[in-house]
């Protein structure tokens, strides 16, 4: 059965019998009853289904006996909403004895988790479990005005259902009403006032069909879900009412005695037409990758009770190429050729279909983004960082509410139906989550961590939010170590453009120590991200951290490489130390060195800053190394001297730098 799509979840022995627990997918409401399961088993093993006994004898209306009476004389039924209730039937049984149901029935109900109540209620449940068609029994004598009306509820009406819940009803809900009030929420649950009790003598047995969406809506609105609503929501057999109704009456007659009133009230809108579908054998084989003949396909369909309409030659096309079928009423899920193909595949056996790989050869292409993300990940791992993964849904604490990324709309993206307040907002930056991961590790005595995450942040957008992939890292290293890692990473990604490091300010200083943090911009003004020392949070030592725009990194990266011949001529190095005012930053000094515009200056490498003895207060000594090299010849010392002096002159003239005497 599992191999035919009905997963057998459990088999439990119950006394001399077995209770089999079957998982039924939502497209197969026909299997929400024992008969449906039996049909499936019959199709799989090639047997036929034995249906339960439904014949009963009703009292003869022609007889003079007071019991021999037509149903229509006892009750009238009106369906005001034929679309929401396409089929309603009522049968009446009088002079019954309400008592416990037979032991075998109680045993069966108990083992599927239903509590036996009395013979009438148990029979309606039992038949529902047999047929998949829900039923409801009313105490006939408690129905006002001998009337049943299937109508929309009126505002202000309410009902107490048999489970004791009081529910207000609204006009978009369908109810079963008597002459005065609603007595049941259609397809969901009956009312307490008209339920069958010990004292009930006469019953009205309702067996009807209700529109699935209507039942689902009302079930959700009232918060009442029942075995009945479960079945109506998924759709019951449009031809199944009669069997279930007769079967229930038969059992009531057998186990509650009573006399069955003659006939039935049967109100039906429209007539059910069986669906007809054509299956092309070629299509079947094409979709499944099989080469089966028409006879195998038609045999499977017959076993599934599909009616084959073109067994004989029609004359139009060769009969061997297609099958016309009529779909059984209970198979609402089958309405297209592809659905028939699935039916055949299922019974033929998915595992009997070959496992072949005839798909064509194709080379896959790795996108630039993929390559860059892999490179970044690989680079950071090489630097000793562990990759972490943290939740995208976070709390609404102040730290999470910071605007790390300039967000024009500044709206947070909140979840309408969060499970908990702790997970109710889409995050706008990654760092708090990484700090949490660090804290977690500290609790377990791991104090030094280097971690990073590549994940999305969600910034409010016009319709859908803007999803930006960011890369964030937290590490117990100092500012310049982390800055160095970022610089090395940029160069690893082939990003040669200059970055501008600006002092952080504003809101983000709730997360970063203002003095030791920077905003990073590319020279075209694009904002790459932030890097700096964390505020003292829960961590004893404050780590350094960064958050960069991964999408921008991918855009700016250049992984194409072209060979450049290294110079054959020796470089000339010069170490210089200059004394300048504290206020001048390295980036300014660098800019002025470059502005001297000297020939053959290849590299400028900072190596030390010194404050202290020999240096006047308010000043600092900056040491750096200049590298000169020509591509076509060996530079002479006097040339380099001139260049060096030009640089020093420029620095002296503009920022008053003095060469530090050794």
């Amino acid at each position, binding site marked *: 059965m*599992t191999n035919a*799509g009905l997963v057998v979840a459990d088999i439990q022995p119950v006394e001399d019998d077995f209770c089999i627990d079957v998982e039924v*997918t*939502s*497209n197969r409401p026909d299997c929400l009853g024992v008969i449906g399961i039996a049909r499936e088993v019959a199709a799989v093993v090639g047997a036929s289904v034995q249906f339960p006994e439904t014949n009963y004898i009703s009292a003869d209306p022609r007889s003079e006996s007071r019991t021999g009476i037509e149903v229509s004389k006892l009750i009238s039924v009106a369906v005001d909403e034929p679309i929401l209730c396409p089929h309603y039937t009522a049968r009446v049984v009088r002079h019954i004895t309400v008592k416990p149901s037979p032991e075998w029935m109680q045993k069966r109900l108990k083992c599927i988790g239903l509590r036996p109540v009395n013979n009438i209620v148990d029979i309606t449940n039992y038949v529902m479990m047999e047929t998949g068609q829900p039923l409801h029994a009313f105490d006939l004598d408690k129905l006002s005005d001998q009337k049943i009306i299937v109508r929309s509820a009126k505002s202000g009406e309410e009902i107490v259902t048999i489970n004791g819940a009081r529910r207000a009803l609204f006009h978009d809900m369908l109810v079963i009403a008597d002459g005065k009030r609603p007595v049941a929420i259609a397809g969901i649950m009956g009312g307490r006032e008209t339920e069958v009790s010990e004292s009930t003598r006469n019953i009205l047995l309702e067996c009807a069909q209700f529109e*699935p969406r209507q039942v689902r*809506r009302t079930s*959700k609105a009232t918060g009442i879900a029942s075995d009945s609503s479960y079945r109506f*929501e998924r759709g019951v057999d449009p031809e199944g009412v009669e069997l279930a109704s007769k079967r229930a009456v038969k059992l009531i007659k057998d186990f509650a005695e009573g006399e069955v009133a003659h006939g039935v009230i049967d109100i039906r809108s429209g007539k059910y037409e069986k669906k007809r579908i054509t299956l092309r054998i070629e299509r079947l084989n*094409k*979709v*499944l*990758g099989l080469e089966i003949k028409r006879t195998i396909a038609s045999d499977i369909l017959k076993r599934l009770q599909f009616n084959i309409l073109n067994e004989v030659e029609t004359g139009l096309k060769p009969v061997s190429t297609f099958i016309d079928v009529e779909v059984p009423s209970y198979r609402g899920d089958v309405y*297209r050729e*592809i*659905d028939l*193909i*699935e039916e055949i*595949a299922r019974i033929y056996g*998915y595992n009997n*279909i070959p*496992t*072949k*790989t*005839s*798909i064509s050869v*194709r080379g*896959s*292409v*790795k*996108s630039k983004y993929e390559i860059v993300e892999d490179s970044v*990940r690989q680079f950071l*791992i*090489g*630097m*000793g*960082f*562990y*990759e*972490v*993964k*943290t*939740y995208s*849904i976070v709390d609404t604490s102040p730290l999470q509410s910071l605007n790390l990324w300039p967000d024009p709309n500044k709206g947070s*993206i*909140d*979840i*309408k*139906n969060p*499970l908990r307040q702790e*997970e109710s907002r*889409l995050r706008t930056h990654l760092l708090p989550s990484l700090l949490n*991961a660090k804290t*977690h590790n500290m609790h*377990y005595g791991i104090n030094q961590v280097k*971690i990073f995450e590549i994940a*999305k942040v*969600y910034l409010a957008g016009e319709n*859908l939010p803007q*999803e930006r992939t960011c890369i964030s890292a937290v590490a117990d290293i100092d500012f310049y170590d982390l800055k160095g890692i970022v610089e090395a990473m940029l160069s690893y990604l082939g990003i040669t453009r200059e970055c501008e490091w600006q002092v952080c300010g504003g809101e983000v200083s709730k997360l970063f120590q203002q003095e030791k943090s920077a905003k990073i911009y590319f020279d075209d003004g694009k904002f790459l991200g932030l890097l700096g020392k964390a505020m003292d949070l829960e961590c004893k030592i404050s780590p350094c951290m960064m958050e960069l725009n991964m999408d921008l990194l991918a855009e700016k990266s250049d992984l194409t490489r072209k060979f450049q011949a290294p110079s054959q001529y020796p470089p000339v190095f010069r170490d210089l130390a200059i004394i300048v005012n504290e206020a001048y930053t390295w980036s300014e000094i660098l800019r002025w060195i470059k502005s001297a515009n000297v020939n053959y200056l290849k590299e400028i490498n900072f190596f030390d800053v010194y404050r202290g003895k020999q240096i006047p207060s308010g000043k600092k000594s900056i040491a750096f190394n200049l590298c000169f090299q020509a591509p076509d010849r060996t530079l002479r010392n006097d040339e380099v001297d001139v260049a060096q002096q030009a640089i020093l002159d420029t620095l002296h003239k503009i920022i008053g730098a003095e060469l530090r005497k050794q």
Partner: protein
Amino acid sequence: MSNHEGTCLHFLYAFLDTHRMLEKLEEVKRNIQSEINSITALKDAEQLKIKYLGRKGIIHDFMKLIPSLPAEQRAAIGQRINSLKTEVTNIVEELLKKFSVEAISKAKHEIFDITLPGKRPLVGKKHLITQTIDDIKEVFARLGFDVVYGPEVESEYYNFEALNIPADHPSRTDFDTFYIKNDILLRSQTSTVQIRVMEKQKPPIRIIAPGRVYRPDTVDARHSFMFHQVEGLLVDEGVSFADLRGVLNQFIKTYFGQDVQMRFRPSFFPFTEPSAEVDISCSLCKGKGCSVCSYSGWVEILGAGMVDPNVFKAVHYDAEKYTGFAFGMGVERITMLKYGINDIRLFYENDIRFLSQF
């Protein structure tokens, strides 16, 4: 070093029976062992050599006694003495080497201890989920699948409607999907990417789409409100269910191992028809039945099927001309199966003791 002469005299008088002689040999053996421990310098080792192996040494004394033994016992005793001699020779040589090398190098410089541990650099690791996704990507890249991504915050259209999930389908309720606004939600499956790709591109299509998905499940050992899925889609002319079986079989054998078996079970997904759930033979119990596979011998790893014609209709593909298949798998689930991890929360705690294992 005890009285050598005395021992010799003792031998001459007392050792006329073999039994005593064997006892004495054992005693010598024991003595040597205790003497070794008190040796701390080269000269001690040299003295030990003379005492036992010298021309007037103890072993020589024993040798001299052999002729006085009864003829039939001489060979056996001789052998015992020889083996003792070999043993002592080895010990003494080892000692001489040890103290001589040490003596020389100690005089010159400190010893470079090559057995001290190396200085290990910190080496990071990819998160295990990334590793699994990378593994999946690699298998499918070899089969010609490109990697694509889609948004996580989606409209109902991409998450449901276009995937043939009607407005009244149970999975569209608040219980199964996180909503942001009325028609905007957090995607509950990566199948959304199918539609986005097909809208932009005509067949043939061969893609996988990894990413985060969200469902309002209370977190426990088996559930998480956020997890990862990988969706796959192949659309072309003449693609069949047999091809789906072939491709997934390739994946399963490569990822889980050549001896792992695959099983298809009919199932239901609105966006595929026919639909299947795919099981693999339980690698833990080799199909015999255990708690991981609920004693069935099989564990479910993914859902798959032929793309439903209604989905093709939504993206204006000719469902008569093109056929295709789609599949989706939970990354956490297959990772847990492969590595025997029993709690999904471990993936998001980011405990270094967990991360460093893989």
